[in-house]
């Protein structure tokens, strides 16, 4: 598979400098009765197309919260989140859903595959939602499973796959609709060092093939594989020294 296969919309030269992600002074408060948890306290950042960013920091510093804003599954209490130039915080649910479907790939720590569907059907799911014909999506699902090295396992259910294999199926699913942005929250968190390394290799290859990747991680090896690391603490980004 070539770079253009996994990359999002082809990036023209004129667009290549425009950031895929631009966060401007984002705040996210969680109200718990009387108390307010300030998970993000004014985060600003930009991510260029083709970049590979690792977000690191102590537990509870707001990494997942930030990633959820980038993934358009949550909204900032204050500030702006622009993905591919669109203000995703202002979108209505229907629009945000369709935006996620076509522009964002999500990989979770716990894989979250549909237990009753086969590996291939799991990869097909976002394509079916996007209205792709059965023949086309089966062909692409097979291609993607080949890409993550699971071509022979397409009929297997998640329960019949190892953790690392499940995570690779989840990555194939995230790539199904050629998203411009691939997000992963602790993708190696449930895996041993060896399988974790496989996933790390896969992310690197994906990025080399042109996909913009953002990972949240405690895993030093995964962070080291990224082109750039963002450090967070107490809901803020620590400026590079």
């Amino acid at each position, binding site marked *: 598979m070539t770079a253009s296969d996994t990359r999002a919309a082809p990036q023209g030269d004129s667009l290549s400098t425009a950031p895929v992600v631009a966060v401007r002074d984002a705040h996210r408060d969680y109200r718990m009765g009387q108390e307010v948890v300030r998970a993000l306290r004014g985060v600003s950042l930009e991510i260029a197309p083709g970049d590979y960013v690792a977000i690191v920091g102590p537990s509870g510093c707001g990494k*997942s*919260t930030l990633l*959820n804003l980038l*993934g358009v*599954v*949550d909204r900032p209490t204050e500030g702006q989140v622009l993905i591919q130039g669109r203000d995703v915080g202002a979108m209505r*649910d*229907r629009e945000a*859903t*369709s*935006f*996620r*479907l*076509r522009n*964002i790939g*999500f990989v*979770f*720590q*716990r894989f*979250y595959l*549909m*237990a*009753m*569907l086969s590996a291939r*059907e799991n990869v*097909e*799911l*976002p394509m*079916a*939602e*996007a209205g792709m014909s059965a023949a086309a999506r089966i062909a692409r699902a097979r291609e993607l499973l080949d890409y993550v090295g699971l071509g022979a396992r397409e009929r297997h259910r998640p329960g019949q796959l190892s953790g690392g294999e499940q995570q690779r199926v989840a990555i194939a*699913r*995230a790539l199904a*609709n050629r998203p411009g942005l691939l997000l992963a929250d602790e993708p190696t968190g449930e895996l041993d060092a060896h399988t974790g390394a496989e996933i790390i290799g896969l992310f690197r290859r994906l990025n080399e093939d042109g996909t913009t990747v953002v990972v949240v991680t405690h895993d030093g090896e995964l962070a080291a594989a990224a082109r750039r690391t963002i450090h967070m603490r107490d809901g803020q980004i620590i400026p590079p020294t």
Partner: protein
Amino acid sequence: MIRTLAAASLRRHPARTILAILGVAVAGALLLDMVMLGTGMRESFRRFLLVQGFQLRIAPKGTLPMDTEATINGASALLRTLRTNPDIIAITPVLGAQIHVLQGTRAITSFAVGIDESTEADYQLEAGTNVAAPDHIVGNAAFLTAMHVHRGDTVDVVTGFDPQLRTYVGRRRLVVVGRGRFFYTSAEQPVAAVPLATMQAMGGPERADRVSLVLARVRDSANADSAAAWVDRTIPRVSTISTDAAMRQVDERMGYFRQLAVILAAVSLIVGFLLVTTLVTVSVNERLGEIAVMRAIGVRRVHIVQQIVLEGVTLSLVGAVAGLGLGLVTAHFLNAILSDFPGLPATFHFFLFQPSAAARSLGLLVIAGILAGVYPAWRAASLPIAGTLRREAIA
């Protein structure tokens, strides 16, 4: 894909799915039985009243329907008068009386009707031939058993029998020519039909020109109620009731009963609804993480709702079909029990299967199944995605 996912989640807990379907089937069966019971009794009465299309029953004034002792005198004059009305296209007189069949020293009691040879007004022939000659008699199965006779045998019949004095008013030797099913008497009560003239003659001079009842058929284009009113006006010694009027009385009297059936039917609908709601809610609650993931990867809310509703519909549809079978079996069984109730006419059915009514009630059950899925589905599809995923990750 929606169908694949719905089928997948029903397959995930097969035992639970089967139990839910069984529950819906039981609710559906009860619903169907109540509907069948509600229409069955009414329809039985109607068929009963509308024997061979005679819409009018002309009986002696001031008597209860089917009172066999009271009679109308001047029968031939009455029939002549009825024939003058052009709306009345057929009439058939009936004279009922108690008879005894003498066998040596024994006298066995039976009820008998004298009928117009041209119509089987009160019964339906099951075997043999109809009464065609003055010495013919047709009995029901209970009559043949009680008298120990078969078709072709001769019976010694008397009327006005006094068991102490062993006297009688009339006596005939009659040939059993057929076996019939009588509409108005229970299966275990012996009853027989003889020609009207024979019955009148056996009653002696006093009964020679009497009938218990006249049935009349009104032409289709005419109004049966106004024909009944005409008869009552013209012949003051009788009172006439039309099938429609009788049905209105039946409806009135069965009102409470039908209400009960409606309430029970509604209860079974609600039970079916709650069953599906419970199952869908339980199944949705254990899949909140899965649903949040689907939302996160861009599956639209309506598609999630469709998938979950489809599960509810499948349960209620399969349950309704199973309920149809179960309902028919139980109705058949209950009908057999209830029909054994002594004194009930053999043709009386408590449960009546009407495809349209069954389709309507089971359709309601399926609609209840759809509605049952909508709320839990919408609620689950509307949960905040990030928060739900976080909670699921902790769990």
